[in-house]
């Protein structure tokens, strides 16, 4: 039989390609981890050293000498506060879009999408000037609000999809019992879709954590976030590879855990609910 003859080589080929894919995904990330725990001399060693005495010196350095903890806290505060704000405002709006028909609904809904799709560089020029004028440059409050540009449209679009899937009969029952619409939302809808909201919130934290351009332009010494901090290791006199990779490692580590925890909702979140 022709097909049986082909089976073994084909299986071997499949596994070879799978190994290749896994290597391609893992090696670059592993490499930054390895560089982070190498001493300066080992980083530049040729051929690259795979076996060496790991050192925590680079991690100690960024926390002890480079104020890294401050920027880490900035990133955490920023990601959490903008997400909380976006979830509260976004879920209420999503409920309005899901459960009611009103004039201009479609236009407003798609305008919100276009905000999400717009290039950040176009928004950041006027935002920089406006925020400078009200004296809130390099301030976490202004960045928190600006990040709503990313997170609020995202949450409205994805959560609307979740609410659409809740049978309207649930609302109606609550309505007969005399609940107001906000009460219906909080008491009936939110508990049903809470896993979806949690996953959406985690994705929103990831987006905020990874954001770079707004943070680059709008922050300075004080409100700087991790992605901007990392690039400070590139100086005119050279690149501090070890500390830079240590900072990179600390930046991506929490995101991995978060991303794994929302794997099930990733498709939906990344496509704004267009693919379920």
């Amino acid at each position, binding site marked *: 039989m022709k097909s049986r003859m082909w089976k073994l080589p084909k299986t071997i080929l499949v596994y070879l390609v799978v190994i290749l894919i896994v290597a391609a995904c893992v090696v670059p990330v592993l490499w*930054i981890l390895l560089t982070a725990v190498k001493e300066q001399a080992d980083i530049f060693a040729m051929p690259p050293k795979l076996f060496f005495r790991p050192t925590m010196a680079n991690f100690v350095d960024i926390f002890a000498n480079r104020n890294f903890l401050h920027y880490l806290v900035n990133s955490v505060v920023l990601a959490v506060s903008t997400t909380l704000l976006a979830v509260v405002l976004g879920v209420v709006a999503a409920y309005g879009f899901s459960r009611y028909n009103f004039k201009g609904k479609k236009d407003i809904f798609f305008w919100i999408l276009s905000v999400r799709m717009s290039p950040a560089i176009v928004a950041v020029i006027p935002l920089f000037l406006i925020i400078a004028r009200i004296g809130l440059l390099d301030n976490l409050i202004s960045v928190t609000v600006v990040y709503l540009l990313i997170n609020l449209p995202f949450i409205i679009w994805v959560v609307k999809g979740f609410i659409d899937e809740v049978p309207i009969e649930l609302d109606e029952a609550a309505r007969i019992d005399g609940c107001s619409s906000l009460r219906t939302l909080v008491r009936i809808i939110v508990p049903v879709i809470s896993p979806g909201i949690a996953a959406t919130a985690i994705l929103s934290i990831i987006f905020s954590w990874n954001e770079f351009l707004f943070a680059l332009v709008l922050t300075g010494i004080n409100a700087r976030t991790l992605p901007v901090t*990392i690039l400070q290791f590139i100086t005119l006199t050279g690149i501090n590879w070890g500390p830079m990779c240590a900072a990179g490692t600390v930046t991506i580590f929490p995101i991995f855990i978060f991303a794994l925890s929302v794997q099930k909702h990733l498709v939906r979140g990344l496509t704004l609910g267009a*693919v379920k």
Partner: protein
Amino acid sequence: MTIRKQYRPYLLIAPATIILMIIALYPFVYALQLSLYRWEMGQAVEAKKFIGVLNYIKALLSSDFWTALGTTAVYTAATVVVEFGLGLAVALLLNGEFVGRSVVRSIAIIPLAVTPVVVGLVWRVLYNTDYGLINFILHELGLPTSKWIAGMSTALISVVIVDIWQWTPFATLILLAGLQTVPIDVLEASKIDGASGLQRFRYVTLAFLRTPILVVLLFRTIDSFKVFDNIYALTMGGPGSATETLSMHLYIQGFRNRHMGYASAMGILFLIVVTLICQLFIRVIDNQGTSSNDGSRTRR
């Protein structure tokens, strides 16, 4: 009472919409106005000079603007085509059966989760001409090494490769989700009806993949078109202007050369292009019915 009921949906969407208007619409109007002035950051506000559409004309006549647009177009076309093709191939592979499939599926999305700036930094290390891993491997294999991001002619392809590394998993993830909606009994039935493997793929699988395919293409097109983080971390647009995409060009013009009015004008032009792509997207998801079931579910 009836009037209040009419206003209820507006009350629900008002807080979010008003905030978005303040942080999106107002800056847009501000940029629109600024684009009609010659003004450099740092100058006094009085130095602002109204010049009409001169900034727009300047942009449209500037070879740097067109070069940046061309670079962005090449970058977008290359990344979207490869990411889609490769993503589909990997999705088909991961949809098959083999030992450790679910673990591999998790590993395959790792690049997606890495902070874009860190991705840039990782590849800076890998690409390094003297002690990078890639040149080392090429050298060991007896292949010619390259200057990668440091070379005038290789820089663009090098940043494209980085984009492909990070975003192919996006295509894989979405297309794999689509593949899992293809009903096996339909595939079996078409097999019994005598359809070849290629025909089954063409007429059954692809039919179910329509929406995921469009979503992947449009999301990647828009995101690639706006690319900034990777480029900033890898090359800052260099060497020369070899990797200077539109976002990078605007950043340099606005924040390094301080031509705020000019940068705003280019920003408006940029926005028009993205809006056109976005319109296409809206038409697509509108047709496939994201909002078509609203009627039956909506309270009147």
